[in-house]
């Protein structure tokens, strides 16, 4: 995402040897790590990731295996999370779904927010032609029926094509944020610190990157965290209609959709997937809050 890139770029600029100067990158990292929320969120998210990617290594089943001796069986020693109607191991499919959803959700959110931030900030800062073109594209995408287009394109998202799917998801989520970012940039543009930078002779692109974007960061981070859930949910509904992630691949979305039908009498088919979704979204939100506070020096001191 742009912000972390910018931070990374700044810290990369410091040559080694001397004690590093007290720049923003270090201050933000320090503040983030000293916040309990941030640490908890980061920890949980890491655990979820570990679980999703390391879990399959210890499971005797893979997500394509079917146990024809146990249909819709409750959790047991053989099937830790039970099995589905098809005999698939819930533990294995849930992990597989988690992997997909994590990657799709996080990537789509990051790509989408980055796109929105750049488009909005550049349109708002430069105005004129840049603005007209970007606004035109934004408006165009806003009126296009995203769902329909994704549905029509769904044959393209066959096996192994999920990066394209992520891109398309992001492409249909960024417009509203971009409009907000543009509006805020227009008001930031007249703020004195931006004018001060301009009169110092700081090149415009640098002003956008180092003054405008960080001051939009509260909006952007909140937006990114919201987008994680939005992306996961959009993917869920697409998958529900059979357009998103295609079988045999699974995602939390398809699992929840399937599981909701059997949830009443076989709760394990539903609750593990739903629970993991909730935990993931929660962890992302905690990280988002902590990051926002870390970027905003006027926020109350981290507890």
């Amino acid at each position, binding site marked *: 995402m742009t912000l972390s890139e910018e931070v990374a770029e700044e810290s990369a600029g410091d040559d080694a040897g001397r004690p590093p100067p007290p720049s923003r990158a270090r201050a933000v990292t320090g503040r983030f790590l000293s916040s309990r929320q941030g640490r908890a969120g980061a920890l949980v998210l890491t655990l979820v990731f570990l679980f999703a990617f390391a879990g399959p290594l210890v499971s005797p089943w893979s997500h394509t295996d079917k146990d024809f001796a146990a249909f819709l069986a409750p959790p047991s020693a053989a099937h830790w999370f039970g099995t589905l109607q098809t005999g698939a191991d819930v533990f294995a499919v849930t992990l597989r779904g988690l992997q997909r959803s994590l990657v799709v959700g996080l990537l789509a959110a990051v790509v989408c927010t980055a796109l929105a931030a750049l488009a909005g900030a550049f349109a708002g800062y430069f105005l004129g032609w840049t603005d007209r073109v970007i606004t035109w594209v934004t408006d165009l995408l806003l009126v296009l029926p995203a769902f329909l287009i994704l549905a029509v394109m769904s044959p393209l998202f066959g096996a192994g094509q999920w990066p394209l799917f992520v891109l398309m998801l992001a492409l249909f989520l960024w417009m509203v944020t971009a409009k907000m970012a543009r509006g805020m940039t227009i008001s930031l543009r007249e703020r*004195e610190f931006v004018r*001060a*930078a301009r009169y110092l*002779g700081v090149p415009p692109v640098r002003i956008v990157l180092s003054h405008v974007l960080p001051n939009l960061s509260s909006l952007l981070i909140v937006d990114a965290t919201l987008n994680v859930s939005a992306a996961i949910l959009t993917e869920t509904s697409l998958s529900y209609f059979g357009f998103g992630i295609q079988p045999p691949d699974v995602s939390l979305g398809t699992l929840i959709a399937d599981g909701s039908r059997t949830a009443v009498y076989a709760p394990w088919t539903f609750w593990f997937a739903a629970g993991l979704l909730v935990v993931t979204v929660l962890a992302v939100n905690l990280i988002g809050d902590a990051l926002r506070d870390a970027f905003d020096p006027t926020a109350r001191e981290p507890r």
Partner: protein
Amino acid sequence: MTPALEVTDLRVTLGGAPVVRGLGYAVRKGEVLGLVGESGCGKSVSAAAVMGLLPPGARVTGSIRLGGRELVGLRERELAAVRGSAVSMVFQDPLSALTPVYRVGDQIAEAVRTHQKVTKEQAAVRAVDLLDLVGIPDPARRALAFPHEFSGGMRQRALIAMAMANDPDVIICDEPTTALDVTVQAQVLEVLKTAQRQTGAAIVMITHDLGVVAGFADRVLVMYAGRPVESGDVDDVFYHARMPYTAGLLGAVPRIDAAGRAAPAPIDGAPPAPGDLPPGCPFAPRCPLRVEACDEREPPLFEVGPGHRAACIRWDEVSPPLPAPPGRTGPGVRGPRTVLAVDGLVRHYPLVKGAVFRRRVGTVHAVAGISFDIREGETLGLVGESGSGKTTALTEILELTRPQQGRVVVLGRDTAALTAAQRMEIRRDVQVVFQDPLASLDPRMTVHDILAEPLRTHRHGDPRRRVGELLALVGLDPAHAARYPKDFSGGQRQRIAIARALALQPRLLVLDEPVSALDVSVQAGVLGLLGALKTELGLSYLLVAHDLAVVRHIADRVAVMYLGRIAEIGRADAVYTAPAHPYTQALLSAIPLPDPARERARERILLTGERPDPASPPSGCRFRTRCPTFRSVLTETERGLCADTEPEMRPLGEDQSAACHYAERLAVV
């Protein structure tokens, strides 16, 4: 006679922090009490407590008696009955105090009807009477206007009219003129005096401006850190201050009179935050007279004279600020080299109307042809009230591009003919300090990053070393580079902004209202720093300000702007002691002096009317519609010249010129 308002041992706690700590005063009818203090000393909160307008969560103890009736502990409904009838308030910001969607007359009538049993018609008539009383021309028509159609001064008058509506016993004015221009301030203060005569009310005047208090109040109460630290008659307090804080404050105010050339003395440090008070005397960390006993306990108010009390254990040793030593006088001859030359600069904006079909309905001449120059090592003060075009002029110069008309020559280079690379080069030599350091420093950057930015942009020196040097240069601790701007006080922040401007070793510094966002006690320190840096680094300043007292202290030459034109320009000493243009005279005479006796004796030149619309300035002389000379001195034939011909700059002395056909030098301060 019971006082109209008596406050005893008032304590207010906001969010756990004690904001007002034992305030007591009494005002009789017909009396004016000035409540003076810097921002955060609790003066506005105490007024809100009297009005019962504190935010929820505030705890109030003590007693507030209005005509003998206790207000503390009253329920909201009973308070509402008192509010507006027995006690009313005039706020600092009249725009937010008036409801934008109702007509002004209706709002005043509403205030009348809330507390009096009168018919709608009677109330409307009363509203028009009130508007007439506060000097709004054509009140019957104006009563039908909406607040946004009023100028700031007229809104404040309307608010005063509203405050008078029910013949209150007490009127509380919370910084009533702070947001206004000086000439308007003088008008509004006159109106307040009228209001007081009419209603016979007691007035509590809350302000940070010692000049306003000197001319307006009978008694003064100085607050510091939530407590009264000195109170007494205006003359006693101003001439025989017995508390080091009061004395310091008086010494820190920049003045427009002869004493103004002397450097105002800053008070070191900043006021303590409520909830974080030093153990003994709250002023101890900043006090020049501090001894060990001061830290033992908070000094009570000592009786130091008849009706004069001060909270200082060494009150008998406090001397009023010394009569200022003769200040430095600017170089009599001007330097040979010109750093900035502006010639016939014009900037106009199209005035467009309509949302769907935008059409041009006129042109606003924000800057209508101004010329001046700044020599090396010189400070030019560009002064004017809001709408005079001074800020536009400054922006035009800073853009370093071809102006719409005229020429701007910076360091010998015409900005119309600059290539991008040359412009970048000149940017190094021309730097700017803005008014509000909180706004001009990126809140998301550490001080180190802020100061390193110009260095990185221009690849100038090693940021790591230079940042420390710069901080030391402006009197800050280099170890504080890792902090954010919000961790500093206002004065310190402005020092950071100055350090940033100095990072590239510029030759011309443009100062846009550099101290007007700061408290008086801190202002003096920043002004002193600017003065010292100028001599040390051989800088030239273009100082844009509305406060003539500040300009007087720091500028060698001054240019007074009115409606996009320069009315008068010349050596600061000459212009201040004997202004020639009628506008300059009115402007200078409107500025209150922190000197009660002289203030009472002074004859004000009051301007009438409102500033004309810059889209359609008057023909001939732009100042003609408000010019006192034009109105009352000139004959009919002489007036013809003013109305037909725009006056050119006319030299009147060694280094003083004015754009007036009948300019005559006159001492007004």
